[in-house]
């Protein structure tokens, strides 16, 4: 088991690591080991509008998707977690449905539907589609958090003279904040990484970074992709380790004694 485990670790790590040296290569095409190293492709990425525009589009679309998703999901999650009512089962299922439908199926639907409505190849179209795909993920994260919420705290606040609104603002929201942030982060990443729907509906008008990467890999395998991959991987490293570091620093500062 042990050696097999180590082999698997290598299998998982190798592809993540390989893109880093490739991004510093000075070869014109994919070549390993690289004949020499330079920042050439970084320079290319940061000066080429055909890469920067899709990057900007993706940031814009993911941000809008996150905002829209949270506006819809937060109240709905409260309704579904905290209330019992007729039709709740169907509503629950409806929230999760987009996870069950393969993206290629949705892509066909959006391509035709948004074409008819006239918002295919627009930012709006991609945002509307991505929100649908982000909703279930944001919901799952948030509802898990909300289920774990100790409602005694709200009762305590009420008994101490806080109105329901003030209780929500001063107690519920701050305590739920980590859950809200993680939920929003999931929604953002879902949109930022989403490829299939974007390939079909973002078009030239709202080309996202994954779409541009897909096209580029398919056609010429531009080594700039290695740069983007390295940067995205770096973002993931920061995103995954930062919470751990913060937690470690916090626990060091406040010894759990007394």
């Amino acid at each position, binding site marked *: 088991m042990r050696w097999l485990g180590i082999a698997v670790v290598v299998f998982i790590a190798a592809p993540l690591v390989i893109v880093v040296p490739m991004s510093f290569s000075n070869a014109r095409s994919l070549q390993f080991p690289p004949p020499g190293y330079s920042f050439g492709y970084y320079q290319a990425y940061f000066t080429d509008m055909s890469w920067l525009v899709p990057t900007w589009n993706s940031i814009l679309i993911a941000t809008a998707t996150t905002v829209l998703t949270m506006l819809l999901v937060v109240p709905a999650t409260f309704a579904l977690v905290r209330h019992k009512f007729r039709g709740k089962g169907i509503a629950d299922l409806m929230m999760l449905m987009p996870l069950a439908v393969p993206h290629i199926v949705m892509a066909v639907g959006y391509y035709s539907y948004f074409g008819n409505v006239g918002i295919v190849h627009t930012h709006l179209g991609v945002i509307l589609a991505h929100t649908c795909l982000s909703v279930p993920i944001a919901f799952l994260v948030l509802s898990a958090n909300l289920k774990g919420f100790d409602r005694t705290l709200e009762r305590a606040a009420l008994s101490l*003279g806080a109105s329901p609104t003030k209780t929500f603002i001063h107690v519920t929201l*701050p305590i739920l904040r980590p859950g809200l942030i993680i939920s929003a982060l999931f929604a953002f990443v879902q949109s930022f990484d989403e490829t299939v729907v974007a390939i079909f509906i973002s078009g030239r008008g709202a080309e996202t970074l994954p779409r541009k990467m897909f096209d580029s890999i398919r056609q010429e395998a531009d080594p700039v992709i290695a740069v983007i991959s390295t940067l995205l991987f770096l973002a993931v490293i920061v995103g995954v380790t930062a919470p751990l570091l913060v937690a470690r620093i916090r626990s060091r500062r406040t010894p759990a004694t007394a």
Partner: protein
Amino acid sequence: MSSYLKLSGISKSYGQFTALQTVDLDIKKGEFVTFLGPSGSGKTTTLMIIAGFEQATSGSVEVNGKSLFGLAPHERNIGIVFQNYGLFPHKTAAQNVYFPLQMRGINKAAGMRKAEEMLDLVGLQGFGHRYPKELSGGQQQRVALARALVFEPSLLLLDEPLGALDKNLREQMQIEIKRIQRALGVTTIFVTHDQSEAMSMSDRIVVFEKGRIQQVATPLDIYHRPETKFVAGFIGESNLVDAKVSDAAKGEARSAALGKVEYAVTDKVANDNDVTLMIRPEHIRLSRNPIEGRKNVRMKVETIVNYGDNALVIGMVEGQPMRVRVLGADVVIIREGEEFCISWTRDSVYMIAK
């Protein structure tokens, strides 16, 4: 003796299930009253109705002559300490205590000063800047108490607040809570299923069972003069013997196991009524031979439960189990399986008509 908190005819049902049935209760200002009962007896439901978190199906709650009907929990000005304290994890101890003052529009400087004063009172000087998770269970308890008292509530409700603490700390907190309650003179209701807690802290105890009040009385009366068989069995150890009254005027009854038993006449009852006789184990003496002037029966010892300073000797008298409290020093001469004499006086037999 005017009543400060008045519950009249409170009932609560969930569909078919009746959680509370016509609860009536009067509590005086400054009194420390304990709701005692097994879980599901309705004590917490009653508390939640007073606090406004549950709506009674019928009946009314009045504080100081004013009905609380239609008031939301945050409009009732009642301080509550919850079972798990309900401290806000994102606020420091001082901020937790300041919270009710903040909600009442008191400015931060004055409010925080008051909060610190309150923390001093509960013995937490210098802990104001700590977050709840940096405090021990007992300290969290004190913060919760300070927070529930800082806004001078009309009532203080404590919902099994000591349940999570270990035994030593619990006793310490019982004394603390009592001290603080006396110092502030706040009318207090304390909910627990722990009888020793109820005994040691309360001015009066309200015993709940199956959604009804069984008895309201001082701790001593509850122990020595229980009104129902349930109260007699629930509070302390007791021997409960079914009997039939043979002479109501003299105080005599017959039991299948013990024969003729004389009891102290305290309650009116007719001849031939079925009653329960209660004899506390500590009122029974164990001896080799019968003792003059006492009711004597022979008992075969079956089990000895040792508590160190005392022991409980359990045996059988004609199919009736009897428990006898024996001093720790005496227990060494008793063997399981041996026969002894057990005896008691008329005064220690208490007759329960219900």
